[in-house]
Each structure stands twice: as C-alpha cells, then as structure tokens.
C-alpha cells in the first residue's frame, strides 16, 4: 500500500502545557477511508488541524503526498480539503461565491463546471444564490463540504461530518463519501457514532488522551477483538446453575430463563461442543439458542477503559 499521509512521532503540546498529541505514528493509504474514534478531548481535531496547517506541531514529521507539511506546505496543502468540526461560514456571502472563493485560495483557476457538479452532488445547486445565513444547519455543513471539494483535493478531512445531521442526510453523506472514495479520494473522518465508522471505514483508529491506541482494518478489528456470546433460552426457569456446569464460563440471566456463554470465536476450541454435551447430560430443556458478535462499540469501550485503568495502575 502506498501511504499518501505519513505521520512520524508527532506530538503537540499547547501553549498552556497541555499535551494534546503524544508520539503519533500513522500511515494512511491512498484511497482508503480511515475513521478516527475517540472520546471528547481525545485529540482528533488537534491531529487533523496539525496535518492541515492550523496547528503548529511541537515535534515530529508529517508528509502529505510525500511533501513535508512545513517545508513544502504549498504542495502538501494543495492536496488537502478540510471540513472543520464547527460550522464556520461567512454569513453575508452567497453560497456560490464562498465556494468559488475557496477554489481561488487554493490557486486553482475558475472552473464553473466543476463547482456546478460539486453543488449538485450536495443538493445545493438550487441554493447557490442564497446567502449563507439563510441556510439551515445541515445545508451550511454541506456548503463547508462543497468548499473543501471545490479545489479537487486528493485527501479529504471530515471532522464529525454528521454531527447534528438528520438520518436521511447522514445516509446521503455516507453515499457521497463512498462516491468520493470511488473517485480515488482518500478520506479521514472523525466521528462519535461507532455505527458510522463500522458502516463507512476501511480502517479504524482509536485515539484517547492524545495517544493513538490502535489502528486496524475494520474487519480485522472486529475479528481479533470480537467476543461471541451464545445465548441459550431455557424451557423452564432455573434457580441455580447445576454443579456439572460450574466449570463453564456461563452466566444466568435475571429472569432465570437465559444462559449466556461467552467465548472467543476464533480460538482453536470454543468449548461449545463440550458445553452442549454437558447440558444434555443435566437434562435441561432448551427452547432456543442464538449467537451474538460483539460490536465495535464494545471493542471501543473496552479499549478506552483498559487505557484508563492502565493509567491509574501506573500512577
């Protein structure tokens, strides 16, 4: 894989002495969708802002398309489109003028056909002559996306693109992101919605307290860290676990109707055959059984919690 963005030993300490990024190392492949997950204040926006030139790194190196973001900032930034987390837009200007302005800033000659297609793809063409302040929040966010796409970037940063966006629009946005990826644009997005990362991303990075805890293929992440549960619905309520089942990793539900068996889906032996055999011997009747794969959300919570408890243990 060819890295379009390469981050080495990146650290950022803000003026007040706060360490927002600590030793970040990350390669982002051309054409992939990378989702950055992390709780509030994790450093997602700081990371994006550093790559885009809004925040000066304290140490480390970042290249975009092989160009250093400090020494070759022009070449590096020309490749980047940024959609910021906050909706910041000139209230009195017209939609089309703001978008044209963005293209100009990036040194690109006027191209009305391109601007038209961008606005159309974001359902903003009808609003092109409206003043920004007359748009709804979701439309404003789309104007920000149009601005970022106006100069035909090869890398697009979307900082919480779907925050405060309704379900229909969110689906449309996902659609747009996929289309951009099909056109070869590399996309880095941050989100608090795990389902969004699960839905969209090729790879997922998890940041907490300025550290990149993990970056992994989405499928692999779910695979590696995925715990599976086998839920057994009992024919009759059970007061307590029979002694012969005590050796299994079983738990009885509150309503005494369900037994849950937790296992590693990818282990050599799941122990399921042995369990079912043991259950048959006890004579318990089963009404139903189902398995459940843990979601990214569980994985995420576990990682972040582990991180916190490690830290506490260390202190």
């Amino acid at each position: 894989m060819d890295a379009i963005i390469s981050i080495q030993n990146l650290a950022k300490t803000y003026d007040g002495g706060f360490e927002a990024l600590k030793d970040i190392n990350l390669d982002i492949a051309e054409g992939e969708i990378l989702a950055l997950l992390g709780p509030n204040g994790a450093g997602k926006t700081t990371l994006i802002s550093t790559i885009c030139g809004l925040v000066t790194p304290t140490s480390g190196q970042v290249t975009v398309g092989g160009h250093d973001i400090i020494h070759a900032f022009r070449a590096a930034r020309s490749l980047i489109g940024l959609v910021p987390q906050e909706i910041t837009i000139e209230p009195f200007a017209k939609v089309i003028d703001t978008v044209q302005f963005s293209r100009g800033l990036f040194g690109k000659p006027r191209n009305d056909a391109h601007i038209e297609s961008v606005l159309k793809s974001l359902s903003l063409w009808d609003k092109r002559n409206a003043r920004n302040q007359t748009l709804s929040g979701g439309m404003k966010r789309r104007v920000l996306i149009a601005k970022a796409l106006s100069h035909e970037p090869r890398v697009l940063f979307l900082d919480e693109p779907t925050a405060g966006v309704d379900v229909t629009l969110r689906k449309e946005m996902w659609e747009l992101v996929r289309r951009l990826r099909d056109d070869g644009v590399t996309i880095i997005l941050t989100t608090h919605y795990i389902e969004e990362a699960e839905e969209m991303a090729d790879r997922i990075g998890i940041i907490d307290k300025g550290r990149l805890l993990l970056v992994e293929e989405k499928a692999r992440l779910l695979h590696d860290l995925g715990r599976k549960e086998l839920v057994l619905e009992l024919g009759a309520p059970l007061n307590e676990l029979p002694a012969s089942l005590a050796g299994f990793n079983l738990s009885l539900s509150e309503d005494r109707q369900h037994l849950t068996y937790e296992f590693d889906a990818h282990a050599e032996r799941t122990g399921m055959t042995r369990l079912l055999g043991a259950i048959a011997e006890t004579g318990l009747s089963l009404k139903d059984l189902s398995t459940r794969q843990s979601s990214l959300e569980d994985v995420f919570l576990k990682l972040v919690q582990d991180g916190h408890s490690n830290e506490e243990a260390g202190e």
Partner: protein
Amino acid sequence: MNWQGILSIYRYEMNRTFRTLAQSIVSPVLSTVLYFVVFGSAIGSRIDTVDGIPYGAFIVPGLIMLTVLQQSVTNASFGIYFPKFIGTIYELLSAPLSFIEIVIGYVGAAATKALMIAVIILITSAFFVDLTIAHPVWMVTFLLLTAISFSLLGFIIGIWAKNFEQLQLIPLLVITPLVFLGGAFYSVSMLPPAWQTVSFFNPVVYLISGFRWSFFGVSDVPVVISLLAISVFLAAGLAVIWVIFRTGWRIKA
C-alpha cells in the same frame, strides 16, 4: 507565489465593500461636506489664507489624509479580524498561501478602498473650492504609501485584537487625535513655538505636510523628511508583519 489566491482574497474583500457601497461612499462624502461647511465656511471666512492659500483649499489635503488614515486602518483591521472572529480563518490557514500572500490580499483591498474614497473626497472638494495640484505624481505617491502603510497597521491591529473594543481602540484613541493635531486644519507654523516642537514628534505632521506640498508647493517640513517619515513607517509595518509571520503570533495554536 499563489497569485490566484491573493486575487481571490482581494476580490472577496472588494465585494464586501461593494455590498455596502452606499455606506462606503455616502459617509465620507457627507463628512467632507460637513467639514467644508464648518471649517471652510465658518472659520475660513475669518482666516482667509494660510501660507498664501485660501483656507477652504488649504484643508483639502488634510481632510483627504484624515480619511485615508482612518479608512485604511479600519478596513484592514476589520478585514482580517472578521474571519478570525467568525472562525473562517481556518480556510486561509489551511490553504497553500503564505502569510505574506494573505497580507497582500487584505492590505491591497483595504488600501484600494481607502484610495477610492480619497478620490471621492477630492471630487467632492472640487465642488467647493478651486483646486490645483502642483505635483500630481508625488500626490499619488504620498497617497499610495500612506494607504499601504496604514493598511498594514490596520492588519496588525486586526491580528492583535481579541475583541471588538480592542479593534476600535487604536483608531479612536491614537489615529484620530494624531491627525487632528497633525496640522490637518492649520499650519504647524501657526502654533506657539513650544507646541511646534511637540508637533514634530507627531508622525502624521510629516504625512500631511508632504501631501499638502504636492498640492500647493508649500510645506511645514521639508518634503524629503516627509518622504523619509512615511518610508520609515512602511518599513516598521513590514518588520512587524515579518515578526508575526515568524512566530505565528495570535493566529495559530
């Protein structure tokens, strides 16, 4: 150089001006007329001539300078403060633009607007008094240098300011008094000797004196010194801009 980028900023800023065209033109024209009524007619009827120039004509260069200084500072400071305030500055900072290119875009637009208003005042004045311009090339030179220097100052103020009060503080507290005490409406030679000495510490005296010389061929201080003063001012502005650029002061975290 990203000329396309500079041009985009320049055009965008000029559009902002044209959106409020009425205000931009009406208010300087109105205040010019008022100055003529108050100073030109009321006082002028008693003073007659200063340095051999009819009083009404004498105040024209000062009036233009007053407006150019105020307009340059206000336009440029507001121009860069506004994106900082509403947050759209992210776009300037993430574009392949150097700080110097951003400065050229904003300062260029602010200076252009100030010059346009200078021309409007000049034309308005021509309705009230007979004007002759002895050294037109020098007149334009002085105007240009002043507009650029003070737009630079405005840009610096806009970057420095943390709120609207600070943004208005310097124009109000520094520029206006300096201009009024800078011989806009009188000749420094009319002051008592002690005050003449004090006046020579006021940089605006040199600007107005030089500018007036380009109209009438008479000045309070030698023209060379005026030219030197404005050049020093311009250089100081550029130096401060350079320092800001080097340190990313108050625009980048």
